């Protein structure tokens, strides 16, 4: 039996809604087959108010063992670090999250807001992630925090978090399978690839056949603001709802798995110098890239220039 407590803070509920789309196992099968005891979930549980308070007290005191704490939404610290912009029974929720994390065997950040602060981290809410504020280690719990398991907070980035990533992480934790993490504590199994990998527009990207307008077939990286070649995530490998992805449907990747999401630049534009994006695909040298893209554009086959290749 693995106990799990899910708490929502400064978020939109989207990671829960996304998790409800988990497929094979679906949410109900997952908890049953992994023998996870869901102590509490804000959207699903029926525990009466008085019993809720007793449960939380018992968790904080360490009387009720807590194997997995899942936190959804950013940690709101405003105004003036008091946390009173997000309260439970008149007390800042951030303090409750810290108290629960201190007792948990594993702590999981569901989504970019819980991991890195996300929306609200530049604002009055003074939001932060659990162990990072954007790219900077620290956050609510501090860089040195380790859960009882010895692991830092496991950051399941994404806005929202992909349901297979959540389900796969819970399965690994419940089954004692080690998860290797990247520099931002995101599991490499899902964040050791870019959103670009698997995008159906790849060939258009390869030959620099670029779009300036919506509802076309070409690449969205050069002008339309797509972060696919920069963003770490499994969107085009796992697909969403088992069917598609934003880039496949003509929506640029906004880099929502990145610690600094949302950046302050307009989402639907690519920042560029002389027509070349300022932010290039991960790890590439600018000089090589310019030569490569110049040659690639010259070599582009007619079927791509005419947008004959379906996506």
């Amino acid at each position: 039996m693995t106990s799990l407590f899910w708490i929502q803070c400064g978020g939109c509920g989207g990671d829960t809604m996304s998790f409800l789309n988990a497929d094979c196992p679906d949410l109900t099968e997952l908890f049953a087959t992994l023998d996870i005891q869901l102590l509490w979930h804000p959207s699903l549980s029926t525990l009466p108010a008085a019993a809720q308070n007793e449960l939380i007290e018992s968790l904080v005191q360490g009387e009720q063992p807590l194997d997995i704490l899942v936190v959804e939404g950013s940690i709101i610290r405003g105004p003036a670090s008091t946390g009173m912009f997000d309260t439970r029974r008149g007390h800042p929720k951030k303090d409750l999250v810290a108290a629960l994390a201190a007792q948990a065997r594993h702590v999981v950040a569901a989504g970019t807001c819980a991991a890195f602060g996300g929306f609200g981290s530049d604002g009055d809410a003074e939001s932060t992630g659990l162990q990072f504020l954007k790219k900077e280690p620290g956050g609510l719990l501090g860089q040195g925090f380790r859960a009882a398991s010895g692991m830092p907070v496991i950051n399941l980035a994404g806005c929202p978090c992909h349901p297979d990533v959540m389900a796969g992480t819970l399965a690994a934790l419940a089954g004692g399978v080690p998860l290797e993490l990247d520099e931002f504590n995101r599991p490499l199994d899902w964040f050791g690839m870019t959103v670009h990998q698997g995008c159906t527009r790849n060939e258009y990207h390869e030959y620099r056949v670029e779009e300036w307008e919506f509802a076309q077939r070409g690449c969205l990286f050069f002008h339309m603001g797509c972060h696919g070649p920069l963003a770490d995530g499994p969107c085009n490998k796992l697909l969403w709802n088992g069917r598609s992805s934003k880039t496949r449907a003509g929506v640029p990747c906004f880099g929502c798995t990145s610690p600094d999401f949302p950046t302050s630049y307009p989402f639907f534009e690519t920042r560029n110098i002389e027509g070349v994006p300022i932010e290039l695909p991960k790890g590439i040298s600018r000089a090589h890239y310019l030569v490569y893209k110049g040659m690639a554009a010259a070599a582009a086959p007619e079927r791509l220039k005419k947008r004959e290749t379906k996506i």
Partner: protein
Amino acid sequence: MARRVVRDIPLNRVEGDLEIRVELEDNRIVDAWSSGTMFRGFENLLVGRGALDGLVVTPRVCGICSTTHLMAAAQALDRIAAVAIPDNAVRLRNLALMTEHCQSDVRQSVLMFLPDFTAETYQAHALYAEAVQRYAPLQGERCIDVVRQTKTLLEIIAILGGQWPHSSFMVPGGVTYAPPVTALNQCRHILTHYRQWYEQRVLGCTLERWQAVQSAAGLDAWLAESAGHRDSDTGFLLRFAREAGLQGLGQGHGNFISYGSLNLPNDSAVAGAQQQLIAAGFVGKDGRTQPFDQALVAEHVAASWYADYPGGRHPFDGETVPQATGAEGRKYSWGKAPRYQEQPAETGPLAERIVGGDPLFCDLLRRDGADLVLRQLARLTRQAALLPAMATWLDEMIARHDQPYYAAVPPLRDGRGYGLVQAARGALGHWVEIAAGKIVRYQIITPTAWNGSPRDGAGVRGPWEQALLGTAIQDIDNPVEAGHVVRSFDPCLVCTVHVVGADRTPWRC
């Protein structure tokens, strides 16, 4: 002597954070205060951002109705661009929005509302064992079924727009993707499968049979007609509510508002009043339907944790300066108080039916009042009217798949516009102002802002504060009856917290 106590009730199985303070006299609610307990400030996030950025940011305000926010944001930009979007784009947008409504209505009913019938309060109830077997969280047979079927339905939005939740496939001028006919056929199969399931398990009859229920007496006859009707989620809701004596409970002010929704394509077999499938209007206590005019919407802050201003303000002129201290006892929520012609109004599936003059719901309103059962019945059965139109629009897209989905628009520089839609929970409006290609003002009033409103400048309660009055509570440690009343409005609190822009102008969802 009457015993008066004040209790705070934290309420879950709503989206977000809600605490209700109630005053009880002999275990009956005599006053209520609704408090949104979270504030998400987005300073510098939309204000100063690119003109199109609302299409990415606002879906993130609400994980349960992100497509609806996208629709409102896109329509506001369409209006600024003064562009008429192609028929296929209208169809695709509508289809995605209706898909979101269908899953939301069923998930809210079965995963959030009906589990209250498994509370220990009802242990002695004749239908208690059946309620537990059906609606126990994550284990009830109906809960498991609904989790499976709704996620399948949502594949339609992923096929058309990339993913659910949180995509941004609607843009000024149309949509970002012209789906191939094979993809549309996949959507058609998913929709047909879902409709069959909805008919069999949620309604217990065909859509046509349900649409033939036109009066309160007709509903009684429908329930008596067959075991299949009684065994459906709709049938169980009615049976349990009658057995538990829930009729008449949770009546609000008796004012209803709908912004209107689902614009009709120019060329379509789907018909509706005012070129929309869902009619706009306001129905006051006198029962008369008035045309809706967005200029008559205003927000008050007398009971909200913001610096005071006199009376109400239209969203194009609003201001929000958070002020969490002072005026203790008078200010108690991060939500503001929207008013239409200075009156509170409830919104949602029931309001849509009343504004649209639906014979069944108008008759039930006359018989039972706008009670919690009527509100929930309206939600659970709304899609009986949506699913046929969804199929028609899909068929029209399949037949006209080579026609455009997007009309190019030049970069947006200056202007202001609004997008008004019906979300699953009711009236949603975005008010946007753009100058020199940047957002200078962005304001959102959500359905839960209407329904969960605190008091206004005149001290008038919000709809569910009013609806709680008179409710008898059996067990104050588990006030399930108050839960019924508030959950019948389908609260979405993540949506209702204010978010403040750099110039201290409010927007919220």
